[in-house]
């Protein structure tokens, strides 16, 4: 039983760290800012869930579970905020490579809005 739990912990920790590696590789290989953003949300959601579960099992302490749940929950609340802010200002300051987009339904909206602004 002990050995079985320890193997689970090992698998969880290694997979969780693998998520960070994927995030790093994604940051390096994706073509533009908005695409890289998808890589950056990875270690936060899945990686930390796995690492926290592994840590809680390894330390065998129920007192740790609320703290880890809090840390994960707080991440779920804050990670989208920064992703949205960076993505929005990246889009507005034209950091998007046009050729990496298949379609852009926001562009027409922005163009219409700026045209009506010009009229005013």
């Amino acid at each position, binding site marked *: 039983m002990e050995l079985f739990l320890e193997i689970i912990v090992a698998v969880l920790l290694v997979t969780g760290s693998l*998520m960070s590696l*994927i995030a790093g*590789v*994604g940051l390096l*290989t*994706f*073509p533009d800012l*908005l*695409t890289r*953003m*998808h*890589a950056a*949300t*990875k270690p*936060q*959601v*899945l990686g930390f*869930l796995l690492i926290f579960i592994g840590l809680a099992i390894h330390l065998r302490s129920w*007192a*740790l579970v*609320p*703290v880890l*749940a*809090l840390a994960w929950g707080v991440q*779920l*609340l804050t*990670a*989208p905020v920064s*992703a*949205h802010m960076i*993505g*929005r200002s990246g*889009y507005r300051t034209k950091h998007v490579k046009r050729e*990496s*987009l*298949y*379609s*852009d*339904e*926001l*562009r027409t*909206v922005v163009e219409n809005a700026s045209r009506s602004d010009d009229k005013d």
Partner: protein
Amino acid sequence: MSKRTEQPRDQRIDDALDEASGKRNRPTLKQEWPLLIFLVLMWGALWQDFSAGNLIFGALLALLVVALFPLPPVVLSGRINLWYCFLLLGWFILQVVAASVEVAYLAFFRRKKTRSSIIAVRLHTDSDLIVTAVGHVLTLIPGSFVVEVDRRTSTLYLHYLNATNAIKVARSRAKIHEIERRVIMAIGSREEYEAVRKIRTEIVDRQRGRGETGEEQ
């Protein structure tokens, strides 16, 4: 912001300033008890101590914090279904795992050739709470995140990874509506919940009807 809809819609969050008097809206204790409970639990979790004395002290601190740093009131829908919340969490984790594998594949093998789209999804709901929750959930699932929100029409503009043809775009749009349906089932208001259930039963009936006619043939 200037062109707000004429009728203030139900459960829409009021802005921080009251329009008539220009004063800050203060939330009532009835609106704020979920925040207070969250703060008390957070205090207990940080100390790793859920004894009564610690929690009471935490409650005092929570009241102090809420009084000193007021936030605009968050109007909840008044309905919560814990079973659907649980289902939402489980479905969310499955989606995160699947999407993580996909992003990993793209990062390692597609590299610079990765393409994506910015798509507009108009949600059915007009509650700010649901729009925010849907935006959060889909940003947390790797492969999609919100670039811009149009609050008046509850339209989300999102960047969707690897949506490189019309079929994939349609599929991702259906997925966002699936998220919306699940969030409404979990925390939406009663009217929205009933509407979602009605549509669901209609679809199921139609599928069942088609199946029966298929058997007759």
